[in-house]
């Protein structure tokens, strides 16, 4: 087999730990992924041998740190097919990246009353609230795509929703709760047609499948390091050069300026313009190492592995009486994230009993409350997979669900 999951797992020290006396079965990678030794080593090497501030020093340590930081940027750019490293802005997470876009594109387009912003009912809160706040600040109107019963984006009203009043469209590439992969080509075409800017929330796609910004046809994408084997504290806003260059700064302070007087400041070119203050240096280097790790395996292989696991999981769960799956029922057009309900048992209780067996799933609204509301539940239980997930772990999940049923419906 080309994809050797046992070999992959050996790189993740945490996977050999126990939880409540059982081997850890980590099925919460959509929340945050585990990190391979290679990533932690790269960060430690920087912090212990080459630690200096970036872009500010001529000294050797500073030069080494700057070069490591900029190398990481170039790696990330190559990973997503960016035209240049200057199109990659480092933020602290996806959420900051989306906030940056909402503030800065909002100002660039002078959004005001009568303008419309379009999102979807399938968004993570981080791709809802910044746009609600933009609308509040400016008087613009928020509109959204609905979600079909199958858990897919309802594009039936595309031409009504995205119209000549639309200034920004921001939707999710892969749903963090339903697992749906959105083919956004039609929406992107329509956005371009009406002259709207489009952001794609790739927090759940870049970690799991090949993503090529040149092919997506959007203006901006956001993603986050900790979901793709990288550390916390680092995220990315990618933007087409022409768009980034036209965007005014958002956070301001050291390192994003060209020149400062007390009266007036002029700003640096992107990406520096958007990276105020000391950036997450070691974190960027960690993300660079994560990208190296993923590239060495190949994103096609990672994606294929996850689809196999997802297919296995969908089948295993469908076989259990009283389990209802939310979102697409087959592995086509969906990622390795499966949310479900166990009849008569609250997700909190499902998660608790699974944890007791070492099986770590997420329960709650998954920062996507409108999706829960859409499906008429207050919360869901979610199992999410990654390159280190095995079919044996899916079996452990299935057995755990039987145990849940035993406790609550003996």
């Amino acid at each position, binding site marked *: 087999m080309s994809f050797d999951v046992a070999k992959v797992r050996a790189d993740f020290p945490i996977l050999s730990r126990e939880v*409540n006396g059982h081997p850890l079965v980590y099925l919460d990678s959509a929340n945050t992924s585990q990190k391979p030794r290679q990533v932690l080593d790269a960060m430690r090497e920087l912090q212990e041998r080459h630690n200096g501030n970036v872009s500010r020093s001529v000294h050797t340590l500073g030069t080494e740190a700057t070069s490591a930081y900029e190398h990481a940027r170039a790696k990330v750019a190559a990973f997503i097919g960016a035209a240049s490293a200057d199109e990659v802005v480092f933020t602290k997470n996806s959420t900051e990246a989306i906030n940056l876009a909402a503030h800065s594109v909002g100002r660039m387009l002078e959004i005001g009353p009568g303008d419309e912003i379009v999102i979807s009912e399938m968004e993570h809160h981080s791709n809802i609230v910044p746009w609600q706040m933009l609308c509040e600040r400016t008087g613009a109107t928020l509109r959204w795509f609905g979600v079909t019963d199958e858990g897919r984006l309802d594009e039936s009203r595309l031409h009504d929703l995205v119209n000549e009043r639309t200034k920004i469209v921001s939707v999710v590439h892969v749903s963090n709760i339903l697992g749906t992969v959105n083919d956004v080509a039609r929406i992107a075409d329509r956005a371009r047609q009406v002259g709207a800017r489009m952001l794609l929330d790739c927090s759940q796609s870049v970690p799991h499948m090949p993503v090529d910004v040149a092919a997506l046809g959007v203006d901006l994408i956001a993603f986050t390091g900790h979901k793709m084997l990288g550390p916390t504290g680092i995220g990315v806003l990618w933007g087409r050069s022409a768009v980034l260059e036209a965007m005014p700064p958002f956070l301001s302070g050291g390192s994003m300026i060209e020149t400062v007087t007390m009266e007036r400041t002029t700003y640096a070119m992107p990406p520096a313009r958007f990276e105020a203050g000391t950036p997450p240096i070691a974190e960027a280097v960690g993300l660079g190492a994560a990208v190296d790790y993923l590239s060495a395996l190949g994103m096609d292989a990672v994606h294929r592995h996850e689809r196999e696991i997802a297919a296995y999981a969908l089948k295993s769960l469908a076989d259990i009486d009283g389990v209802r799956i939310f979102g697409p029922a087959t592995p086509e057009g969906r990622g390795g994230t499966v949310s479900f309900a166990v009849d008569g*048992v*609250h997700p*909190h209780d499902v998660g608790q*009993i699974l944890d007791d067996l070492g099986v770590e799933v997420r329960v*709650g609204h998954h920062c996507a409350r409108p999706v829960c509301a859409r499906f008429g539940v207050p*919360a869901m239980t979610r199992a999410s997979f990654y390159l280190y997930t095995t079919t044996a772990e899916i079996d452990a999940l299935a057995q755990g669900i039987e145990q849940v049923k035993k*406790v609550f419906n003996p």
Partner: protein
Amino acid sequence: MTDQLYQEIILDHYKNPHGRGLREPFAGEAHHVNPTCGDEITIRVTPDLSDISYDGVGCSISQASASVMHELLTGRTPEQVRVIEEAFVALMQGRGQVEPDEDVLGDGVAFAGVARYPARVKCALLPWMAFKDAAARAGALAESGDRQTAGTSKGANS
């Protein structure tokens, strides 16, 4: 291990909740939310605590806790309520180190195991916090006669 959490008593209250449902008349109402998991509860109380009614969605712990609370507090005097409330909160915040007094807490002693699960303590306390707000709004806990104006409002249990 979760045997300690999911005691028979808790599962019973969860499956057969006592006093569930929102009833009239009432003098104070409060709606609390657990932002992490989306659990919600609404509590209504009469000024004399002769009825405590409630409704909500949530896990076994929060729902059973509401049922037990209904049993423990309905018809009690403000002073009795204070004692029971304090005992329950102390039990929940005791990280498993507090020995519950069955004379005070009744079925509430079954929640002793919850205290070992920091993430679930909030669930158990959700109805109690909402009750506190509702009772204050109903003026039900005032020792003297200076009761506050009854009213309805919304608060977050964060």
